[in-house]
């Protein structure tokens, strides 16, 4: 039995059409015209307990809308959502006790006072009993190394430390599902790594199911075994990253430096660029192994230097977006 079940959800938004200029604004003020945008168009998936799923797609693909529907903020026009056998719009209070959410661009901490005060308030909001709360809090302090930052007003914290507190705040009530909407946005490399490590730890130790949206493919690579790619409100891919790589990541750039002249035409060479004494080949590794290609080259010319560009998940995603025209 799946822990999270999403079945055929759809959501359409009514957006007023804006016309330019003052006269246009006036016109639309009195006679507003609308167009309908399908933010989500028949999405279904299921997630097992303890999974970390990367939910990716370009801006405006419907990521946030899905997260909002899953967390019970929005009702879908049709279709159903179930988490732990609870339905969000039937019993909101019970349902939201199961979930924690961090929206990278919004804060749930009180800006002017130390994070610990916010945590204490959350304890009362979620009606957590004292011992339970102390235990969870200490766990989080250890895991996240919060000891020194808990008593500083949040507005004085660095973005990385704030995000740590933000995530801790969403875990105070021990939710079984954690939604992270761009948790690493705006963080530096060190903080990003810290946040990723923490998500991993929480997932492993408490078996928290994590759904993560991000534009940072490193997040995805280091955290998620499974990704769901959406575009224009539809699911384009749902599966493991390694499979995705096999399927779409078949081009390699090989740059060689040589003084010799070479002219080879093969159909596995997708692109060939020459500059100075360097040649850049883009080859299709489904048709020839890199090893074979280099052998072929070295039989014809002397190679001074060689560089093989390793695959980059960002390029892969760009390629995917292009392929699906999203």
């Amino acid at each position, binding site marked *: 039995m799946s822990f999270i079940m999403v079945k055929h959800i759809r959501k359409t*938004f*009514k957006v007023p059409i804006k016309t330019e200029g003052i006269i246009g604004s006036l016109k639309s003020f009195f006679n507003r015209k609308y167009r309908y945008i399908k933010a989500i168009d028949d999405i279904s998936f299921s997630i097992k307990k303890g999974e970390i799923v990367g939910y990716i797609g370009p801006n405006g693909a419907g990521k946030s*809308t899905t997260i*909002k529907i899953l*967390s*019970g*903020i*929005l*009702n879908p*026009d049709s279709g159903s959502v179930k988490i732990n056998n609870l339905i969000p*719009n039937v019993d*909101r*209070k*019970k349902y*939201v*006790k199961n*979930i924690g*959410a961090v*929206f990278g661009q*919004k804060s*749930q901490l*009180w*800006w*002017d*006072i130390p994070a610990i*005060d*916010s945590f*204490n*308030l959350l304890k*009362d*909001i*979620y*009606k957590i009993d004292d011992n339970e709360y102390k235990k969870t809090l200490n766990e989080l302090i250890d895991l996240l190394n919060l000891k020194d930052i808990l008593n500083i*007003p949040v507005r004085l914290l660095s973005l990385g430390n704030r995000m740590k507190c933000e995530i801790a705040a969403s875990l105070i009530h021990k939710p079984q599902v954690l939604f992270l909407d761009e948790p690493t946005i705006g963080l530096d490399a060190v903080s990003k790594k810290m946040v990723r490590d923490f998500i991993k730890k929480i997932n492993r130790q408490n078996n928290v199911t994590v759904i993560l949206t991000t534009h940072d493919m490193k997040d995805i690579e280091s955290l998620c075994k499974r990704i769901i790619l959406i575009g224009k409100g539809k699911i384009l891919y749902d599966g493991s990253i390694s499979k995705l790589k096999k399927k779409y990541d078949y081009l390699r750039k090989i740059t060689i430096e040589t003084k010799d002249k070479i002219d080879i035409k093969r159909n596995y060479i997708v692109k060939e660029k020459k500059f100075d004494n360097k040649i850049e080949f883009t080859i299709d590794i489904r048709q020839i192994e890199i090893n074979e290609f280099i052998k072929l080259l070295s039989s014809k010319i002397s190679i001074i230097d060689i560089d093989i560009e390793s695959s980059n998940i960002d390029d892969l995603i760009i390629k995917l977006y292009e392929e699906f025209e999203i």
Partner: protein
Amino acid sequence: MLYFKYFKIHTKCELEYKMSFIMSFISQFFVFFGYYFTIISLFSKFSNIKGFTVYEVLLTFGIIQFGFAFCETFFRGLDKFDDLIVYGNFDRLLLRPRNILMQAFCEQISLIKLSRLLQSIIVLIITLINIDITFSIDKIITLIFMLISSVLIFLSIFILTASYCFFTVKGLEVRNILTDGSKHMAQYPIGIFKKGFVTFFTFIIPFGFVNYYPLLYLLGKSDNKLLIISPLITVIYLIPSIAIFYKGIKKYSSTGS
């Protein structure tokens, strides 16, 4: 109770900026005395308005100010509700396992506005000392009912105008017609106005039951004992306001605006 925990936190936040807090508190305290001076100077020219003396008018004035300042202090979250919707922070309330309306109250609590409440209490005390009423138990009860109903009616209006944000997103000025506009009128005994206004303040926004009809009893202008409990009519006003608020939440979660 959760409200008091919020109250503690809001207080802590405001006290983070000590100097700013003190200055705002003092300025709020003095600025709104201007209102009272207007009335006093008005009465230095006329000894009464349609049979109401200066202290009688100050009493109605103080009662309205009390209710308004009370709601502005303790339910300010509703007053600033449009911010919550516009910046998308309302989502946060939906994510928490607590009553939404209660959370909305708690969103903002303004201690600075407490100075205005304090001021209205001072004015009420001065007025009650000087006013020509012999107080009996039923008159004290009437007065307490008046104060409670003043809070209730502003609470209803606050909830109503907050609900309005669900339908238009931005609060706009409609709120002010309801709160500020009618507040300014209702600060006077509404009997002094033309009949249309009296009807408006009786049936549309029942300010009349807050500080006019019971006032008649208080001042001995009427002997009808029903007037003692007439302020409680404002409770009825609260119910549809809450219903509309919840309708607004439903709309919000289906449109996400």
